């Protein structure tokens, strides 16, 4: 197994978390370890007319004060979350941006659906009042590249910026692209993703995918791998990460390392071929020069759809054996965060590696018989951790896997 930092093209040196579980990395992490849910009744609009009324909202975040005043009316909440998280991540990394060449710093974020709420408001103005009521900022707030562009401008990063849209796999694919850049000419990449589509049109569009849970009880609404699994709860938020090329400068600052990554696309429902998840995980392990036994914990995609849960459990069993590796899904506390979800899982996995503790999965009580997993439940499990596998799947077939290794940042006080 590759355990030296020298072999990794990317170390994660900073993170900014803004999630239903907390604004700020440690607040999130403490909530996860305490099993405190961020899911509740939707407050951002009146959800009473909709079949889904629960969501993971970021209650503690208002853009004013966290985002430059100029940018508040010019950007969507999804970008507000990312701007604030990027500020936090850059500060957390303790990197001196002024010391890095401007063309060797880049921004690559995941976007699942762009500035949904901003776009809805502008469409309302267009249809209620006419074309001249559409504001000047629709042109820069709604499109999927808004967040990357704004973060690039804010931090003076002039390298090869990018935006990856692969729905809920986007967080891993963005970090994967960041690693690709760090293997080339870039030295630092701000990456990860956020999402905020909890507005009426956003919710109605999400309803159309048929995967949302319509449960009323926040504790029983999102139950991956459970016999009662009946869809997921949508959420907002995510995580922004600072990825750097490892070197003497990153010593003592790394939460962890990106050891391996692979992406595939599942066509099993259409073609009758085998699902690609197991193969994608194996490719990520190969890329990390790991064997299955090297993996200490798996952060599951945890779709909470009976079919998708079975596909994931079978893939994990195929690669690792049944009950052979601890599996967890802290996302039951936040709901699925679309463009921000996998990025938050990477952040949570890195915190787990740092502190040597597998956070537990709150919610599932009776696992399906066709999901033979060692799903960590009831309480966090303390154990030394060297590596974590993060699995993410996006609507339509996007499938990604990433192997993370422990870094050299001192453990937190837990």
């Amino acid at each position: 197994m590759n355990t030296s930092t020298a072999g990794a093209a990317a170390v994660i040196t900073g993170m900014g978390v803004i999630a239903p579980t907390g604004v700020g990395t440690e607040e999130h992490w403490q909530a996860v370890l305490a099993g405190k849910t961020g899911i509740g009744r939707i407050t951002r609009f009146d959800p009473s007319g909709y079949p889904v009324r629960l969501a993971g909202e970021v209650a503690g975040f208002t853009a004013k004060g966290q985002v430059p005043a100029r940018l508040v009316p010019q950007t969507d909440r999804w970008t507000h979350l990312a701007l604030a998280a990027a500020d936090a991540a850059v500060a957390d990394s303790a990197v001196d941006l002024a010391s890095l060449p401007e063309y060797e710093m880049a921004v690559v974020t995941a976007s699942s659906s762009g500035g949904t709420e901003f776009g809805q408001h502008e469409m309302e103005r267009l249809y209620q009042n006419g074309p001249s009521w559409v504001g000047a900022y629709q042109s820069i707030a709604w499109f999927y590249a808004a967040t990357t562009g704004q973060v690039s401008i804010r931090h003076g990063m002039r390298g090869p910026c990018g935006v990856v849209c692969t729905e809920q796999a986007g967080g891993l694919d963005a970090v994967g692209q960041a690693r690709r850049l760090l293997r080339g000419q870039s030295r630092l990449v701000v990456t990860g993703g956020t999402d905020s589509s909890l507005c009426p049109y956003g919710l109605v569009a999400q309803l159309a995918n048929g995967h949302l849970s319509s449960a009323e009880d926040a504790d029983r609404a999102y139950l991956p791998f459970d016999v009662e699994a009946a869809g997921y709860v949508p959420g907002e938020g995510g995580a922004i990460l600072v990825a750097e090329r490892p070197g003497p400068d990153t010593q003592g600052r790394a939460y962890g390392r990106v050891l391996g990554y692979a992406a595939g696309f599942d066509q099993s429902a259409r073609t009758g071929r085998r699902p690609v998840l197991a193969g994608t995980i194996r490719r990520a392990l190969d890329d990390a020069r790991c064997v299955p036994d090297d993996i200490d914990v798996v952060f599951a995609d945890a779709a909470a759809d009976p079919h998708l849960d079975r596909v994931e459990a079978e893939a994990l069993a195929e690669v690792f054996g049944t009950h052979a590796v601890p599996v967890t899904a802290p996302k039951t506390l936040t709901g699925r965060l679309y463009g921000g979800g996998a990025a938050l899982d990477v952040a949570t996995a890195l915190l787990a590696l740092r502190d040597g503790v597998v956070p537990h999965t709150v919610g599932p009580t009776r696992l399906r018989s066709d999901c033979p997993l060692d799903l960590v439940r009831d309480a966090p499990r303390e154990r030394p951790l060297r590596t974590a596998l993060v699995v993410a799947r996006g609507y339509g077939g996007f499938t990604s896997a990433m192997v993370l290794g422990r870094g050299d940042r001192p453990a937190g006080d837990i």
Partner: protein
Amino acid sequence: MKRRAVVTGIGAVAPGGVGREAFWDLLSAGRTATRRISMFDASAFRSQIAAEVDFDPRAAGLSAREVRRMDRGAQFAVVSTREALADSGVDLAGFDPGRVGVSIGSAVGCTMGLEQEYEVLSNGGREWLVDHSHGVPHLYGYMVPSTLAAEVAYEVAAEGTVALISTGCTSGLDAVGHGMQLIEEGSADVVLAGATDAPLSPITSACFDAITATSPNNDDAAHASRPFDARRDGFVLGEGCAVLVLEDEEAARRRGARIYARLSGFGARSNAFHMTGLKPDGREMAEAIRVALDGAELNASDVDYINAHGSGTKQNDRHETAAFKRALKQRAYEVPVSSIKSMVGHSLGAIGAIEVAACALALDRQVVPPTANLHHPDPECDLDYVPLVAREHRLDAVLSVGSGFGGFQSAMVLTRP
């Protein structure tokens, strides 16, 4: 030996005609496809013109079911993919599906579908919300632009890396660049790479109206896209798609494939300056060009043609003229430079891939497409912009550039195989 990506198939759905040859005919004849908007009632808009594709999805080979499911941008992408595959003659059955990738660019995703459904769900904006169950089942597929890449992946049964790249108006160039990278790094052996955008709907027109970016020359629509002309007054929106089949050069040669062009170098930079504004010095675009030339192991003096971003805004035309001079020095004054946006308009994220397709065809045919409507050159744009008429020219290496909202600047070098 370094793996290299080559273009072995081209499919295009562009204003002026569906299909690669119709597209090239338009460019080589210097005809324009800009006209008054027919797709919706644009009479209340500042800019009422666009480059529309006369596209009948059923005639283009899509089933009724595909038409119902897919946003117009996805329809373009699937039709282009089929054409590109047929053109390349590659037999995907001979490949491990896990080694087949997809990299599609789009700036605005499935905007039309999203807007049409909003209109239905809100009863034309009068009341939100009529009934959430009125939303079509495909509505979520419209909300996430990744659908455009997924549809191409379904079409070719790809199980490798599939991504939708969305960097505003450089999406197309960046998506082809990403596909090129997947081949070079060995993640894929075949990549369907390209970009699609179908943004001709009220919300897009209104948003560009609001920032006076689009041309209000409604009475002379056919001549409204005037890059580098002193009388230009904004860009003309367009729609369209191009998809390329990219293969590893060695494997393509082994199977005796026809090779249009090699993707030799790619560079991307950001100006970190302004979401829409450009500094006049062209510094970051020049840097992207330098990176692309380095990747191609070429010098400025090797460039035989520049396919400009040439959107037809004063700011852009001067910015990139400065960038060409900065990156290529004296060579900038010697090479032909042209903007096909003068003919096919600006299809946002799609245009970068459409322009790469034009460059591959230009290399193949040894013809430089012209800049239409260029009668009165802007004195500050003093390069050879190939006005009005296509030009036969020896082409071994060509450069294509793009510039987009967000501050993104990208450049690609294509060479004759």
